[in-house]
């Protein structure tokens, strides 16, 4: 039966030869080659979880009064998009886990891409004949960033609305076409009547389709050109040594897919991410002070913060300030990234075909340039949290910004010079001793990798089960009746601690401990804030009775006095 089917297919398509080619493809056995695979697995998980979420999400800007199961926001006016995201979180069974797995997968998707790009860069894998595939890869990175941004922007909570408005300002800053372009994107002036539906169609259809197409192209080129490999015993430019696709490699790769999924499942179930119910619906006059984008936008955020107050104005026209850190910088970054294989070939005069990889330590200039660039973006990334850093170090934000501005310029240059010098010296010494490059023993590192992944996963699971709270438990306990008989501290822990911190140190909401503004606020004012809400703090009538609010305030006063 089976045989007849296979034969029938082969008779019509002649598939045996193609199948053999795929089954026999050789994969070099080095752990760093798996980073690319992890990207693919993240993408598969993103598509699967994303399809599930699409079945429930409603990207509509129509204003509704929320009547879902999350008590603190009941009766609050919000878009249907935000309301449906809350429903996914609180009413759809497994919805919260899948939403969080989706978000974590997006973070890991970009993180593994970055790691893969770095591997390719530092080992020279982008060199001829792989320049085209490098360019396809850089495009995939750009699209991943775009889709991450459209994804968390379309939920229409306070945080995403703030991010979107910054994004709008950046588009508006484009010389000449900025105003028109932003109007065409949004369907009008911010926020525009069509923004959510357009973000939605970009996020679930257009960008993912292009990503899928480019992944296929990336892999077809990879198969055609065959893998690179590190130099070593028996490894030459005209061969490639490793495990064949079938059966061992395919099985191991499948195993790694499940290990990646397992890690993401643990993260999604146990480590809270983007708690949209805390931020509240987007209000044009409000802002969440802990507005932090996803990690991969951190460098842009930092660049915006560090840019001095300067812009070009002439003849009645201007190129506004956000243009330089956001558009000029990212344009340059990705421009250089795209052009790098050709730039390097031009500077080194090396136009040969390379299938054997470089060891990073033997390419002092390239490696040092890479490290310097990483330092630059590292400083920008840190600057993206300069306010948090200032609180942490107990210095003013102004001081932190001045120091980081200096570091942005100085540290990449220093890192480059020091690293080049150290590496050149080590190469020189090796040469003087007449040693060749260290020869790697070609043993498998799969076991080590599996062990590391597993250990990391277990640590995550343990740590986060000990420290995480369950948001979905809140609706049940957050009603005035259910709260009857609780002390001020118990009420605070149940209703307030998630935002204001267990010791009033502040998390998403402001700190309220000793030496904060709230010490000066009257009890009446605090009570009014609790009942009517303020900024991103949701109003809580029906959650706590008047006596209960007073009990909470009494408790807060006790802590403030300590």
């Amino acid at each position, binding site marked *: 039966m089976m045989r007849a089917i296979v034969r029938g297919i082969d008779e019509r398509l002649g598939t045996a030869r193609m199948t053999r080619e795929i089954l026999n493809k050789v994969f070099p056995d080095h752990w760093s080659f798996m980073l690319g695979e992890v990207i693919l697995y993240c993408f598969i998980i993103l598509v699967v979880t994303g399809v599930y979420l699409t079945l429930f999400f409603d990207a509509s800007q129509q204003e509704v009064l929320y009547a879902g199961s999350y008590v603190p926001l009941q009766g609050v006016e919000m878009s249907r998009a935000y309301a449906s995201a809350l429903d996914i979180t609180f009413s759809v069974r497994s919805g919260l886990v899948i939403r969080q797995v989706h978000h974590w997968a997006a973070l890991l998707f970009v993180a593994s891409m970055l790691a893969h790009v770095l591997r390719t860069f530092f080992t020279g894998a982008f060199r001829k004949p792989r320049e085209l595939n490098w360019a396809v890869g850089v495009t995939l990175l750009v699209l991943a960033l775009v889709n991450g941004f459209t994804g968390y922007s379309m939920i229409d909570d306070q945080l995403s609305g703030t991010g979107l408005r910054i994004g709008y300002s950046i588009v508006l800053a484009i010389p000449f076409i900025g105003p028109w372009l932003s109007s065409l994107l949004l369907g009008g002036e911010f926020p525009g009547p069509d923004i959510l539906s357009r973000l939605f169609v970009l996020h679930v259809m257009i960008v993912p389709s292009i990503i899928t197409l480019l992944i296929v192209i990336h892999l077809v080129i990879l198969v055609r050109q065959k893998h690179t490999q590190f130099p070593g015993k028996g490894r030459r430019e005209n061969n490639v040594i490793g495990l064949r696709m079938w059966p*061992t490699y395919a099985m191991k790769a499948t195993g790694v897919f499940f290990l990646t*999924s397992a890690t993401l499942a643990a993260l999604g*179930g146990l480590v809270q991410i983007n708690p949209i119910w805390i931020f509240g619906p987007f209000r044009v006059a409000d802002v969440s002070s802990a507005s932090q984008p996803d990690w991969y936008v951190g460098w842009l955020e930092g660049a915006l913060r560090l840019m001095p107050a300067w812009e070009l104005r002439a003849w009645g*026209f201007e190129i506004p300030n956000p243009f330089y850190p956001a558009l000029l910088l990212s344009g340059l970054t990705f421009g250089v990234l795209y052009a790098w294989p050709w730039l390097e070939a031009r500077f080194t005069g090396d136009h040969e075909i390379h299938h054997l990889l470089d060891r990073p330590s033997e390419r002092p200039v390239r490696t040092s340039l890479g490290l310097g660039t990483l330092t630059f973006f590292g400083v920008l990334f840190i600057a993206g949290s300069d306010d948090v850093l200032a609180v942490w170090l107990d210095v003013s934000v102004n001081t932190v910004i001045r120091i980081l501005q200096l570091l942005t310029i100085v540290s990449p240059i220093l890192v480059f010079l020091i690293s080049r010098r150290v590496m050149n010296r080590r190469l020189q010494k090796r040469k003087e001793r007449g040693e060749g490059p260290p020869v790697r023993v070609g043993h498998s590192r*799969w076991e080590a990798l599996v062990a590391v992944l597993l250990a990391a996963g277990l640590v995550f699971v343990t740590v986060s089960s000990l420290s995480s709270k369950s948001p979905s438990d809140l609706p049940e306990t957050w009603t005035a009746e259910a709260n009857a008989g609780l002390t001020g501290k118990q009420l605070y822990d149940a209703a307030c601690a998630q935002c204001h911190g267990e010791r009033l140190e502040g998390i998403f909401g402001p700190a309220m401990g000793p030496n904060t503004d709230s010490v000066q606020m009257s009890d009446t004012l605090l009570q009014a804030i609790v009942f009517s809400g303020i900024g991103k703090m949701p109003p809580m009538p029906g959650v706590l009775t008047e006596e209960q609010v007073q009990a909470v305030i009494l408790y807060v006063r006790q802590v403030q006095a300590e």
Partner: protein
Amino acid sequence: MHETKAPQVGFGVTILAGIGLLVLYAAGGHPQLEGLLWFYALAGLGVGIVTGAIRYLPQEHTEEERHPLLSSDEMIAAAKADLRRADAPEGAPDKERRTVLRLLGGAFAALGAALVFPIRSLGPDPSDDLRETPFAHGVRLVTVDGAPIGSDQLGVGEVVTAFPEGHTTAADAPTLLIRFDEGRFFPVRGREDWVASGLVAYSKICTHAACAVGLYENVTGVLLCPCHQSTYDVNDGARPTFGPATRALPQLPIAIDSEGFVVAQSDYPEPVGPGYWDRTNNL
């Protein structure tokens, strides 16, 4: 890896976790436990498959030849010859053929241009939208709940976010109405009559990247934008004093109407919010 029972244990864990998930789902679900059980189900599978592949499948490495991708000279020549098939056959009217080709190019260009026009439908002309807010002569400033604001409502150093009456969700309209400290406030020259009864009104939209300038330190009279830390001096025309913002927050000229409520004298005299290419043109 030779004596390991990891595959058996792994798959066993997956079976147990899978059954656990079924039970959990039927019982009403629980995010943390779901995550934990998914982890065990998937990790068991992953560990089982990887260790199984190491224990039960061949591990020997293979050498595969790599051949140059560059095509042979004959192949390139043949391909060129194939392409040349498009050359005009002997005796065809060469001139006419060229004209037809040009027309074909023109046809595609015209079609392409026609296909581009619908893009214009995506959004309206932005120039007026960007300059105007719903504020106008005599329009009352109201709170987010729509209540008009009395001239004596704020104490010194207090601030309220105000909107034009009937437009409490307009994104370009949020305005900070502040009772300033008479001893420290210096009106910008020419704007002495833009303030009324100790109140001054500035746009709440940051001129840097359009965040709401949400933090006010009433002791120093400093407004701080929490997004990128631009600061503005309320007592000095909301001039930027730190951070990336290059321009002062636009000031709304206000007055007190006959019933004692705060009203706008006009719309903002300049566009609010972040800069753009022709912001200062045709003001």
